[in-house]
């Protein structure tokens, strides 16, 4: 199974004390930002700081993703040239709108990997969909690079582009979310959700996480460590789900050994997709217990 990405903790790339502690909060990924949280006057120093953090801090098994500046700015080339040689796990490309943009980033990364003797394809990509145009082209974007491991949605920018206001129910980005999940699943990669901006409203966060889990997202960006645990709790299978899955998998195994076709568990007919889902729940549960 692909790696867990229930929570991705955003950190500004220009604050050393936050970079040094980024990995201690138990998020599945950290998301070091060179884009919106770094002021224009600090773009170059943040880049150098993040490179040094990658070179010197042992982040352990956690997935380290860097959000570079958008392709339409002058900064992204320098971002990649400075960062890629330090081998982050992935690059998040903000405001992705076309497959060509993704290919452009892919090509530049390939070049840098080669120059630095990094195994080809080591650095993964996560295009971020934040505009109507991006949503329109989302299938092409998802399939634009072999490096793609996830599509992500930027709710705030998308709402701005759509000319609407963000609401608690998030109806305004419902369609975009669904389209992104479809495109991601079609390309066999993860779909990752946007931030929940009210850090004090943990109940609201839980509610939204339940919604996006139902839609098919694998995780959610977070902006405060307190948001990590509630999100994990939503994504982690419950004891009931695990027990149910064990029953289904065992029954399927028994049926296979006996050469039976259809089986029933708790009076419900169990067919192959249900068994596959049960197996997924069990391997997910196993990975979350590590």
């Amino acid at each position, binding site marked *: 199974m692909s790696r867990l990405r229930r929570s991705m903790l955003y950190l500004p790339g220009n604050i050393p004390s936050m970079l*040094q502690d980024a990995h*201690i*909060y138990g998020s599945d990924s950290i998301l070091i930002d060179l884009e919106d949280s770094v002021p224009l006057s600090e773009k170059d120093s943040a880049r150098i700081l993040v490179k040094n953090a990658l070179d*010197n801090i042992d982040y352990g098994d956690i997935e380290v993703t860097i959000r570079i500046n958008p392709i339409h700015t002058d900064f992204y080339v320098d971002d990649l040239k400075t960062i890629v040689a330090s081998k982050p796990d992935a690059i998040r490309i903000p405001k992705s709108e076309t497959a060509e943009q993704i290919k452009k980033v892919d090509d530049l990364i390939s070049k840098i990997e080669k120059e630095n003797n990094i195994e080809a394809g080591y650095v993964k990509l996560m295009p971020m969909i934040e505009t109507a145009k991006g949503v329109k082209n989302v299938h092409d974007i998802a399939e634009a690079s072999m490096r793609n491991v996830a599509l992500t949605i930027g709710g705030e920018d998308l709402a701005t582009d759509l000319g609407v206001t963000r609401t608690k129910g998030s109806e305004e980005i419902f369609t975009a979310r669904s389209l992104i999940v479809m495109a991601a699943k079609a390309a066999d990669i993860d779909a990752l959700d946007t931030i929940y901006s009210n*850090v004090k409203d943990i109940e609201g966060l839980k509610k939204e996480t339940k919604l996006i889990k139902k839609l098919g997202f694998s995780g959610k960006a977070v902006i405060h*460590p*307190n948001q990590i645990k509630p999100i994990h709790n939503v994504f982690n299978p419950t004891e009931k789900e695990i027990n149910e899955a064990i029953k289904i998998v065992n029954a399927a195994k028994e049926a296979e050994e006996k050469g039976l076709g259809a089986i029933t568990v708790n009076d419900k007919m169990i067919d192959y997709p249900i068994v596959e889902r049960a197996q997924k729940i069990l391997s997910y549960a196993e990975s979350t217990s590590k």
Partner: protein
Amino acid sequence: MQKALQNNGGFILKNILDRDVPKKVSSYTNLEPYYGSSNKDIIKNNDKLIDFEEVLDKLDIKDGMTISFHHHFREGDILLNKIIKNLAERGIKDLTLAPSSLTNVHSDTVIENVKKGVIKKIHTSGLRGKLGEEISNGLMGEPVIIRSHGGRAGAIETGRLDIDIAFIAAPTADIAGNVSGAEGPSACGALGYAAVDARNAKKTVAFTDNIVDFPVKSISIPQRLVDYVVEVNQIGDPSKIAKGALRKSVDTPPKNMIVASKVAEIIRGSRYFKEDFSLQTGSGSISLETISLLKKIMIEKEITGSFLMGGITSGHVDLLENGLFKKIFDTQSFDIGAVESINKNKLHLEIDASDYANPFNKGPLVNNLDFVILSALEIDLDFNVNVLTGSDGVLRGASGGHSDTAFGSNISIIVAPSIRGRMPTIKESVTTVITPGSDIDILVTERGICVNPKREDIKEDIRKNTSLDIIEINELKEKIESITKPANSIEFKDNIVGLVEYRDGTIIDVVREIK
């Protein structure tokens, strides 16, 4: 009768009631004849109210005396500065200032009067701010004596710290001298440090801005210990005495939340976490967060504790009121909730510093503790802890109850960030030892948990009953130094500016003048 007395070799005097009484009889010699129900030692005085200036005249303060104060008002204390200034005006010199601790609010006055020769020596638990800096730079002619709270009570009760006059800031008093800490505009709750001084000082004066009708409702210090009561306009700054509402968890720094959750898990997995366990914590955000996590665990596991101790806050009170602990023993109350509770809840008991931690009495309560959660400025590879001097070697902390509770408890847990600013918390050797590593069991940081090698039982419980990883302290040190690099060592002069007493009065370390 007379014959018998004479046979015993005694002789007879007439007392004031014209009774024939012996001067001596059998082995009883130097008998005093009754000469009236009042004499110089027995004065009926149920109105001890006296003016501020008058009391200072009457106390007959002389050069070289030892005077004491309590620090229950923390940064809201007014009395210490006021008294020192007055004594300076009276030309008094060479005093030994022996408060239970000193806070930032005292810095300017104390520095000025050390320079003037009014104060010659200081005995305290802590030193902060400008005063700490000045002393570390050689302000005093004689080293400051640093004592733990239990050590101070022990020194007072065994006479090593001999207090001439205890000046007690009293939130409320009656004219007979009963003092309450939990009532009045400057209510601070328990008066646990002041109570020891009142019991042992040659003279005790209570200063208050809240005189009430006799008797005060709840008595922290009884009238039998108080010589005079002085009414003043204002005794403290209430806004700086007891903090308001407890901090909400969302305001707790996320790093501290991580540490708190680890501590709660360690306690949950410990063999000492069982019915009737006891706990002491401080009032910092890690402690408060740990308490609130433990509340859930105790309810879930249906475990009720015996008692809570420490700097008491609303968080502790919440556990008491929910029936999760049977008692609170309170030497020092930290917020409004604790003050209100001590006033109304019979299960919330005020104790003094000797009850709490004096190693020489027959049963300080620290010895009944299962768990204590303590902080550290530095900890070293031998688990020695420094809570007194900063990474620059300057005095900026307090011994407090650290060594007392670490010794008494079954499990002492140090909570600290692994990095402060740019400085690593784990050092090869701490700048100043306050608590010996032999009494420290666990270090919990956001980056890892270390267990003292002598506590195999704790390691076993953590491995078996929690999902937490243990790391050797030298490995954690290396991990931290991979980010910070090792700290440069601090350079000191030879001059000793502080003597650090262990709780039994022996010298565990010294503080030297910084270069």
